[in-house]
């Protein structure tokens, strides 16, 4: 049996699960910094409370299930889920919103299935989708990019009141409360893309802010790729498909569709491609499967963005492909050494009628 182990000699790849998660957390830092810089203290209140709730719920569930608590907590995976959900929620979300999301993520999506490694769906995205479906109002209220320290910055005190559920963004100007995708989606039917941009119903600098945030996530993603925490397959397939579909749509109808660059940088695509879609537990696992999986996410994101009711769709697309992942895995085995051709699927004879 193998008595040697890679962590004695660690090349580039982190050598333990906890290490993998630690690197992932590290890689979120640029994104978090950019978000905080543009959107204020609310990002940090989200993260802080999500982390507390995540660790608390994980510990409670482990104890309830009679599993070792501290040893398992040390794998950092609950923290990862908390951070990813925390940054996905609108900054300065109320505590109850975050709590419900974390319960859905940690209790329902993770521990009802048996904890780390067993879950079928991406926990953070289950939490996010559940909130989006249940509370469409609060979930689509993004503050404007007022900055952390600038003259227009929302003071910490107000953010805290918002976090405590005492005030809500709803009381503020409706249009500041929108992501670019959101605003674009809800532009009145008749408005052409050009008119929308010309009139820019978005506050000054919102697009720039979003672009910078997306680039910060990209930097984190590069780190993950370099450390081989993630493979290139999913991000490349997802972003590639997304750009392709966006380009086709834009070429077909430039007056009503956003440009490919807008779709890449205007929403959660980059963040999703490197941090969400890559969750190894719920994604397809073979290299070939990962390509399919990523491409599926990209296509679904664009389909929903272009025609569906939701402005952004990374969460739904990821969940939908989570749903398909085991099936993909059955049908994406590579050609095994010594075999003339790949033989895939559970049953060669019954495998074809699907679609």
């Amino acid at each position: 049996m193998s008595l040697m182990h890679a962590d004695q000699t660690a090349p580039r790849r982190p050598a333990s699960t906890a290490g993998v998660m630690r690197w992932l957390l590290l890689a979120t830092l640029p994104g978090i910094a950019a978000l905080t810089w543009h959107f204020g203290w609310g990002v940090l209140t989200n993260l802080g409370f999500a982390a507390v709730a995540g660790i608390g719920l994980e510990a409670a569930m482990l104890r309830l299930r009679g599993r070792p608590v501290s040893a398992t907590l040390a794998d950092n995976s609950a923290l990862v889920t908390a951070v990813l959900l925390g940054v996905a929620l609108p900054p300065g979300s109320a505590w109850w919103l975050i709590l419900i999301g974390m319960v859905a993520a940690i209790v329902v999506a993770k521990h009802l299935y048996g904890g780390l490694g067993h879950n079928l769906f991406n926990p953070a995205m289950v939490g996010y989708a559940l909130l989006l479906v249940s509370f469409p109002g609060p979930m689509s209220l993004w503050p404007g990019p007022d900055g952390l320290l600038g003259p227009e910055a929302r003071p910490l005190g107000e953010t805290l009141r918002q976090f405590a559920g005492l005030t809500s963004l709803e009381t503020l100007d409706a249009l500041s409360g929108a992501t670019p995708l959101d605003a674009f989606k809800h532009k009145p039917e008749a408005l052409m893309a050009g008119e929308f941009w010309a009139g820019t119903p978005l506050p000054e600098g919102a697009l720039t802010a979003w672009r910078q945030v997306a680039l910060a996530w990209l930097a984190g993603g590069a780190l993950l790729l370099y450390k081989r925490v993630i493979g290139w397959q999913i991000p490349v397939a997802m972003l590639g498909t997304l750009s392709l579909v966006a380009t086709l749509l834009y070429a077909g109808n430039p007056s009503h569709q956003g440009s490919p660059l807008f779709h890449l940088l205007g929403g959660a695509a980059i963040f999703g491609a490197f941090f969400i879609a890559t969750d190894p537990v719920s994604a397809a696992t073979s290299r070939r499967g990962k390509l399919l999986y990523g491409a599926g996410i990209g296509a679904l994101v664009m389909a929903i963005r272009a025609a569906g009711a939701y402005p952004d769709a990374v969460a739904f697309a990821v969940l939908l492909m989570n749903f398909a992942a085991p099936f993909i895995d059955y049908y994406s085995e590579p050609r095994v050494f010594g075999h003339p051709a790949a033989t895939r699927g559970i049953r060669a004879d019954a495998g074809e009628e699907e679609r």
Partner: protein
Amino acid sequence: MLETLLDADLVVAVLALVGLAGGFGALLGFAGERFRVEGNPVVENIDALLPQTQCGQCGYPGCRPYAEAIGEGEEINKCPPGGEATIAALADLLGREVKPLDGEAEAMPRVAFIREAECIGCTKCIQACPVDAILGAARHMHTVIADECTGCDLCLEPCPVDCIDMLPRDAGREAIPLPAGPGHRPVLPTPAWGAALIASDRPSAPEEARHG
């Protein structure tokens, strides 16, 4: 009331549906007669999964009758020689729930062994053995062909002098246990050199290390 019954609407309705049903009925009758098939492939499949010990512990005289009974709705958890594995396979085949075994599982595969010195050659065990695994002629000592014996122990009871034992069958190479799973270290042999030098917190019995 009679008026209602003779209402034109009503008659039309009934006639239409009767016509429809008559037509369909004829179609079904045709199909039922034309496409009649004998035999039931499901029973074959079930039978193939049973251990073929032919021991009758399921309450049926042999595996095949039990297979037929399962095909007609009998529970799938009645074959002790098959144990959990057979139940799981049957549940898989038939899409039913896995149930715990009704009775005790056989601890290990066994074979009959006749203490030849005591055998009086009554041939009773030969008649009882469902797979002709016992050799011998009247008034000569009998012996069991171990390779053929399924371990059903049906020969035990008829023997008038109780000369048949059930012995464990050597199951070939020992099964390799699966590792214990997440949260556990892989099992390595406990070092047995320089006992004085080894800290006493290890389990001292080597057996444990071997099988755990």
